[in-house]
């Protein structure tokens, strides 16, 4: 089954812990297992050819060229061997056999495991319209994606970005800074509709417009028109043709859960896990973007979170569980997004909020939005307001009472607000 036709010794393809997915979650699981003294064999398998690397800079400093790839590596190359962590790049798991404790990869190889940590993340959702296959149509999920974009950019004058979520907006910001004309299409009536409140959406809309991005809300993509091979224009449902030499789709993630679901794991939009990261299958754990987990910060509902924080903290929970310290996953979600000179930091989950309190002045380019639900603080979005972000964490963790007058007063540090309100 191997390339040479020689079967490796039986032991070579069995690992006490097999981690599928070599992104933030998978890498952190391996690191934490070794930190906590796990002495068994550990393998880290991933689809991509690279050593584990940070994904957030792909739509920011790596796309812009500000950071070379080497500085994105989660650990230096020598680290993995020094820690006795076997890297298995360029392999995609196509099947899991929970009874036999094996996985099968796309090249037909079979790997045995004692414990399986599924950290496979997901794949960028692709456009499915006419012309979506044309050269010049991109997604932003992997280094290879961004390398392809960068290679084409010198010949590009106008880019159409599809999707007004964080990835699309970050890409738009970098492309504007690189001097490209950018048209951004969003189907909804506001940007960041899925992840933020109206005030934040309008602020970012105004900012991108001021930076010269042609933001089109309520815009529906009908198809991509090519010149035979490459993209030449984007056609909207109303018939408008927008010339473009590049199309960037930032339209979400498809969780990589197929093989586990096919093996009988509970789930749907991701793999369902309990608070300890256990799937419904024995000795199989799931973490990160693809893990549908119960969240205190979503009123106990099962949710997926696509963030470094979630991948890292879930990895630590599972690694602790496998080294004798079972702890439920309770870390407060946080996230960041850098666009132009704006640093957004968010803590908690604003989805489902029923009130939003503005703190500070958006015109001053430093403000926060405090989100409440059923009379309790559930989240904050902080723009160039790191102090609110760090001090506001306690408001979310403590689910303190929502007192709009107090929360809106930017002269009162949130630390003091937290102390005043946590009593109630």
């Amino acid at each position, binding site marked *: 089954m191997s390339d040479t036709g020689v079967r490796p010794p039986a032991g070579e393809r069995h690992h006490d812990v097999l981690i599928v997915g070599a992104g933030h979650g998978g890498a*952190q699981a391996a*690191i934490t297992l070794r*930190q906590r003294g796990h002495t068994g064999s550990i393998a880290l398998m991933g689809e991509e050819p690279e050593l584990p690397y*940070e994904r*957030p*800079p792909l739509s*920011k*400093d790596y796309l812009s060229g500000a950071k070379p790839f080497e*500085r*994105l590596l989660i*650990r*230096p190359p*020598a*680290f993995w061997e*020094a820690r006795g962590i076997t890297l298995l790049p360029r392999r995609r798991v196509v099947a899991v056999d929970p009874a036999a404790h094996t996985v099968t990869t796309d090249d037909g190889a079979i790997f045995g495991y004692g414990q399986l940590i599924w950290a496979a993340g997901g794949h960028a959702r692709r456009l499915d319209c006419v012309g979506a296959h044309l050269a010049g149509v991109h997604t932003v999920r992997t280094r290879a994606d961004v390398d392809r974009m960068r290679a084409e950019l010198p010949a590009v004058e106008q880019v159409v970005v599809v999707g007004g979520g964080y990835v699309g907006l970050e890409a738009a910001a970098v492309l504007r800074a690189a001097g490209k004309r950018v048209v951004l299409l969003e189907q909804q009536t506001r940007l960041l509709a899925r992840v933020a409140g109206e005030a934040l959406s309008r602020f970012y809309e105004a900012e991108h417009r001021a930076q010269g991005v042609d933001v089109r809300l309520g815009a529906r993509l009908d198809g991509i028109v090519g010149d035979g091979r490459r993209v030449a224009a984007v056609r909207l449902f109303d018939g408008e043709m927008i010339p473009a030499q590049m199309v960037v789709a930032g339209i979400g993630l498809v969780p990589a859960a197929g093989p586990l679901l096919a093996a009988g794991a509970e789930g749907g939009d991701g793999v369902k896990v309990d608070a300890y990261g256990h799937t419904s299958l024995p000795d199989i754990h799931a973490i990160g973007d693809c893990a549908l987990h119960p969240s205190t910060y979503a009123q106990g509902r099962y949710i997926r979170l696509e963030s*470094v*924080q979630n991948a*890292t903290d879930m990895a630590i929970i599972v690694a602790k569980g496998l080294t004798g310290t079972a702890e439920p996953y309770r870390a407060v979600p*946080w996230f*960041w997004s*850098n666009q132009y000179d704006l*640093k957004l*930091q968010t803590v908690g989950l604003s989805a489902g909020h029923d009130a939003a309190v503005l703190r500070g002045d958006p015109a001053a380019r430093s403000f926060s939005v405090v989100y409440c639900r059923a009379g309790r603080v559930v989240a904050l979005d902080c723009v160039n*307001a*790191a*102090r609110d*972000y*760090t*001090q506001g*964490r*306690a408001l979310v963790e403590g689910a303190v009472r929502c007192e709009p007058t107090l929360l809106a007063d930017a002269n009162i540090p949130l*630390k003091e607000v937290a102390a005043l309100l946590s009593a109630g």
Partner: protein
Amino acid sequence: MPIITVVTRDGTGRAVDMETGVTLMEGLRDQGFDELLAMCGGCCSCATCHVYVEPASPPTEEEDDLLSGTAHRRDNSRLSCQITLTADHDGLRVEIAPED
């Protein structure tokens, strides 16, 4: 290259040569110290690369804001991603702060 003494959370210290031009966070990572989560990758968006430095140096305003939320802050707290290493850092003593 500056020689920097690194004290890990178990209290043990080790002197290492670090590259200049990279951040202290990257220098620690490159030298195999793996206790820092450094979750945001060094863009000053979290406080998971918190260290104590001797001699002390003032944090930037933004860094100061992020440090204001940590439970283990001391006078010589810094975020290691905000220190770019130069030859002048020779002799620096760095202690990895406890996790929050």
